[in-house]
């Protein structure tokens, strides 16, 4: 239990070397908290916040202890015991839970000139005003219109491509409101692979951010909404590593005594990540429009939570005219970790700079990834460090976008 191997893989410990910020130390605090030896107060909540929930420590742990889960459970317990903060309650239960409310709110914001983009580079100009609320993290501009208004409820394969089946897509909030271009490319790629793609407007946020912050009750309600919307489909594809890791874990969000447990387990089994699914189906992408050099960043939620590493690389290397180059530490966290990136800005930036250096060394012109959260952090980092690299979702690379 105390070998400390997690110290070798924890991105946060690598920056500040503080024992209570690494799995071994935090697990001891959680244990002491459970035994009543320490008081679970605001300071305790703070300690718990120093985890990115990247899951890397579990991979290094010889006993395979899921320390990220332990942290999330402890946060949940805090939320039950001490209650959520007013802001948390407002954001989680008032907004994130209801996609319609998010659409209205963000729709209003999108009307402000400069806050949105029809297509193209998402990080520019007036949207920077929003960075005031994110402690300096560049917030992407809103997509105008949102994804729901850009794509059909049902997309069929292009003429000449044989229909091989039907898939439902779960595209998540980031694609819906911020990266609608990429969302469209995910759907287009799946269609090119021979699948009829169903887009449901009944979905809400996957709930992971809320679950990880400890409000598991709200998260379960959201999971229920999503299961009801997509439960009738056999295959559910996500383009967001965070969403797929959440959807694949819905089964464990509902305890075995819960009547919804079986439904959730069944639902989780049908979920696959975009690249995982395409490689399984033997998809061969169109050659790239121009010769280019691309590298790939492993999102923690794909690499450590789902163990998916080969498929995205296979897709990128199979692209004719595109050269793939591996970056040093491709599987190292980008440093965002959802709200972590805002709560612990200094640590987040220190982790980010390592990633940006690794990208710089590859001399690649495009960095592809599979998670919009990572995209935001990488875009922010490239901009902050003046690195002329285009950050794209892997589907955008497959569709020949070059930024």
């Amino acid at each position: 239990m105390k070998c400390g191997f997690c110290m070798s893989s924890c991105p946060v410990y690598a920056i500040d070397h503080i024992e209570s910020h690494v799995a071994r130390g935090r697990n001891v605090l959680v244990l002491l908290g459970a035994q009543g030896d320490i008081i679970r107060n605001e300071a305790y909540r703070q300690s718990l916040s120093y985890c990115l929930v990247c899951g890397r420590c579990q991979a290094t742990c010889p006993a395979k202890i899921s320390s990220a889960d332990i942290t999330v459970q402890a946060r949940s317990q805090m939320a039950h015991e001490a209650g959520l903060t007013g802001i948390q309650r407002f954001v989680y239960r008032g907004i994130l839970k209801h996609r319609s409310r998010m659409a209205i709110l963000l729709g209003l914001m999108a009307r402000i000139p400069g806050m949105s983009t029809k297509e193209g580079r998402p990080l520019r100009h007036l949207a920077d005003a929003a960075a005031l609320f994110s402690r300096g993290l560049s917030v992407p501009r809103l997509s105008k219109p949102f994804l729901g208004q850009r794509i059909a409820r049902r997309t069929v394969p292009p003429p000449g491509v044989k229909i091989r089946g039907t898939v439902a897509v779960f595209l998540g909030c980031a694609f819906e409101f911020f990266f609608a271009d990429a969302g469209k490319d995910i759907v287009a790629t799946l269609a090119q692979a021979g699948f009829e793609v169903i887009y449901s407007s009944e979905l809400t946020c996957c709930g992971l951010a809320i679950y990880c912050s400890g409000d598991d009750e709200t998260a379960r309600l959201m999971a229920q909404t999503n299961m009801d919307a997509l439960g009738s489909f056999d295959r559910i594809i996500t383009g967001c590593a965070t969403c797929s890791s959440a959807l694949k874990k819905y089964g464990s969000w509902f305890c075995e005594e819960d009547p919804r447990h079986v439904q959730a387990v069944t639902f989780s089994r049908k979920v696959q990540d975009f690249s995982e699914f395409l490689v399984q189906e033997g998809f061969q992408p169109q050659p790239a429009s121009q010769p280019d050099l691309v590298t790939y960043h492993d999102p923690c939620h794909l690499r450590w939570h789902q163990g998916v590493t080969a498929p995205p690389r296979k897709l990128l290397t199979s692209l004719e005219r595109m050269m793939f180059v591996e970056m040093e530490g491709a599987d190292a966290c980008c440093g965002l970790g959802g709200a972590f990136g805002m709560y612990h800005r200094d640590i987040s930036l220190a982790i980010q700079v390592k990633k940006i250096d690794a990208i710089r060394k590859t001399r690649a012109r495009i960095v592809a990834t599979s998670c919009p959260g990572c995209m935001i952090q990488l875009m922010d980092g490239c901009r902050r460090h003046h690195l002329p690299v285009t950050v794209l979702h892997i589907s955008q690379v497959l569709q020949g976008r070059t930024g």
Partner: protein
Amino acid sequence: MQLHVKYRSYLTGICTMALPTDVLGALQNIVGSEGMLASGLDLAAYSFDGTTNWQGMPEVVVFPTTAEHVSAILALANAQAIAVTARGAGTNVSGGSIPTAGGIVLCTTRMNRILEIDAANLTATVEAGVVLNDLNLALSRRRLFFPPDPQSFLAATIGGCVSENAGGPYAVKYGVFKHYLLGMRAVLPSGAILDLGGRTMKNVTGYDLPQLLCGSEGTLAVITQVTMRLLPQPAMRQTVLAVFDQVVKAGEAVHRILASGIIPAKIELMDNWIIRRIEEMMPLGLPTNADAILLFECDGLPETVTKECAAVIDLSRQAGAVSVRAAENAREAENFWTARRAGFSAIFGHAKTVLAEDVTVPITRIPELIDRVRKLSREHNLTIVIIGHAGDGNLHPSILTDKHNIGHFTVAERVMEAIFSAALELGGVVSGEHGIGLEKRRVLKQAMEPEAIALLRSIKNVFDPKGILNPGKIWEDA
């Protein structure tokens, strides 16, 4: 002199600071606010090490980044008679870095620069907080090799390894930390910064002070920088796995191989309990009914490795191995060694408290030691797992227990003492690589003459007259 900090019961939990605010202020002036932790929760995370049965709360944790910081901290603590416990990653398994006297934990993890790798002279100079694995990665890029390999190398710091004189599987052929230590920078409690030893293989200049500090468990000085000897990387490595139906035969195999003039780089032993746990965690196809497994590594020039492996296989068979074979490829070899590393964690994962010792006997006495451990295990109905470095006589009999189950724990402690006695009777020592720390203080009297212990105390007194450095470790207060 009476230390001004109180011994604090762990269970009183997080409470107000006992160190006066002016001391905290002075420390903050030295290391800055970002170099200091004083909140109860942060401190609780420094109340333990790699063991599962010792805890003690510090009153403040400081992160110096230079020898000058260390000097200022020690001078301050010395003037005020405040206890200082130096700590690297806290992966030690003797209780050695636990601040049982409260006071200051001086954490070296932010002194983590590799200062120089001198390939021409085969030396490396690093700061004390460099993680062994980080050094190994930097060395392997230059085809250099630093053999001592405590199995905590993923997290353990060089300063901690030197202070514990750590070693690992490579000790059979390559020795332990002390065999590679050439020089160091160390800070005395007075605040004096000393450069000891040098950077040459040979050096007979007065008493060998670096060797005195090596293994002194942070009781004499704080090491801030270390210069070590390196080797070129062996051209080839090969792993051999031998399975035995009786552990005695495994012991016989080790004896025959070493007597034949072959020194494998590693010879590791795992018992049946470990084999079964490994198969549960990561199926490698090990026979779960085997009584013991030996894992060998031979390294060197390809011709040598081929010949040595053939001899190891042959001699293992002659000693009665049920099956023996070389790893098919590098991947399989890596799997075997990962399994070996996972062994310890498997032990710790299966009990609330584990008494994991590191008794060491002359290699020919290993089978006897194992027999006696097993007899104790049967007599007292305890699970005692045996894993260890068969090639150098260093075994880790690990008793699975629970410190909250007083009855069980008392028996476990008694049996552990019987194992210590057994090791001493067989001509061995109570600690091969973990150090005495807190865990084995009570057996020091059995292992050393009273005059020798008095000598230890006198040496300590010369370096640290006020007794501020890691008080309460190695020997029990008289």
